[in-house]
């Protein structure tokens, strides 16, 4: 029986979503903590798997059948350097050095980065075999996975919808189209960054309350051997076509309830 829950991931798991420290609605990890009070959340906005695995490597030998690991595997090119020298190299004030560090990384560790998530998810899979713990994975982007859902069983589960998709699919369709039109010429990354910026004040962890509930149910569905629900789509009108800053009341009609 599960007694401990540990969460690793990026902004989809970050518990300190805004400055006040209080979220505007219940979150999936908050609901997990209600059920398993010992839940530990290492989620950090903007981080990548390298950051998450720094902690996971230390935790791995201690895991056993009483552990549930929830992992958001983010983009592998979100590098987390080890050395202080490297940290200094990427300081914003030294953008030239940052560029050098990035170039160095992409030159020397290109393959290790590009295929990084194949290895990370594989290690999570073998961990679920050896430690007998349960591991639940969301990928931020499904294209980065090698295993996909093919090895899913009672101890290991990869969800077949990426969080990036879930986030985008929450918007009602006309809003998605408007978003696309408005940002013509932008890359998908540009749009994502804009959505993320808008989310800071509104959607917690880029998802509406309804899908936070779905996420919670996905995890407990896996743990309890029940059905694992899909994310809801077309449930969010978006906020960015209105005045963006200030009064949240402006956005009273942002959600669509079917």
């Amino acid at each position, binding site marked *: 029986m599960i007694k401990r829950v540990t969460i690793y991931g990026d902004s989809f798991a970050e518990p300190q979503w805004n400055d006040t420290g209080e979220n505007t609605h219940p979150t999936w990890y908050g609901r997990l903590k209600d059920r398993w009070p010992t839940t530990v959340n290492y989620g950090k906005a903007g981080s990548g798997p*390298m950051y998450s*695995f*720094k902690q996971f*490597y230390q935790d*791995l030998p201690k895991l056993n059948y009483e552990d549930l690991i929830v992992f958001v595997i983010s983009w592998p090119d979100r590098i987390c*350097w*080890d*050395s202080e*020298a*490297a940290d200094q190299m990427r300081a914003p004030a030294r953008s030239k050095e940052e560029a050098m*560090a990035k170039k*160095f*990384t992409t030159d*020397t*560790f290109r*393959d*290790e980065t*590009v*295929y990084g998530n*194949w*290895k*990370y*998810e*594989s*290690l999570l*899979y*073998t961990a679920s*075999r*050896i430690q007998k713990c349960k591991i639940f994975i969301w990928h931020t982007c499904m294209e980065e996975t*090698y*295993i996909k859902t*093919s*090895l899913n069983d009672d101890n290991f589960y990869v969800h077949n919808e990426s969080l990036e998709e879930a986030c985008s699919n929450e918007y009602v369709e006309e809003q998605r189209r408007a978003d696309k039109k408005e940002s013509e010429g932008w890359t998908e990354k540009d749009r994502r960054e804009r959505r993320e910026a808008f989310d800071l004040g509104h959607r917690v962890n880029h998802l509406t309350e309804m899908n936070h509930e779905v996420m919670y149910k996905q995890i407990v569905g896996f743990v309890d051997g029940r059905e694992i629900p899909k994310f809801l789509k077309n449930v969010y009108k978006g906020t960015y076509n209105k005045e963006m800053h200030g009064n949240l009341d402006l956005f009273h009609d942002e959600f669509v309830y079917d």
Partner: protein
Amino acid sequence: MIKRVTIYGDSFADPQWDNVHPTWYGLLKDEGYKVTNLGKSGSGPMYSFKHLYRNISKYNNDDLLVVIISGAPRLDVEEKDYRLAFEMFKDETIYGNWKYESLLYALSRQQCKVFAYFLSVEESYFKTSLNDDRYFCFSKGLVDVSWDEYVEEERLIHEASDDLNYRINHLSEVNHEIMYKQVTGFVDGNEIPKFLKNVYRGTYKKDEFVYD
């Protein structure tokens, strides 16, 4: 049924030695397998996996991969960049082999058979505990195997460089034969023999091999 064997690894697999006796990979070729040997002396897993990432989609049940997982700190970077690379990617390097072997294990679940040797088994996360008919990790590191070939009194006075002219891939002919039998034993579901110990006297004496 296995038709193709692809070998990844370091000097224990490198085919570019002056072969004074039959080799384990040569014997596999003689057996009729289509052998591709990507072994390269001095290389590490980062080098091997550069190739593997590109080839991975081609493997299926006709394939066997024999992978010698070398020392994780052998990064595939230019010498001048090594120190900075190691510092910047310390954890990724130190725990690198946990990930490499895990990817091989995942590959064995989905696509093909895998036989893995480590240079040092201490760098393995799950060692032999997931061995089955699709994945096999040999229980002893090849560095130890190489040293244990020496008769005991000779072990302390030798250097690996002695091998360049004498033992191919740091192993004597008898253990090349064993290595070949380990791989085919795994493929055919037969017993996997252990390496022989105390069979090599070193190179500076005329009668260098000891046959019991």
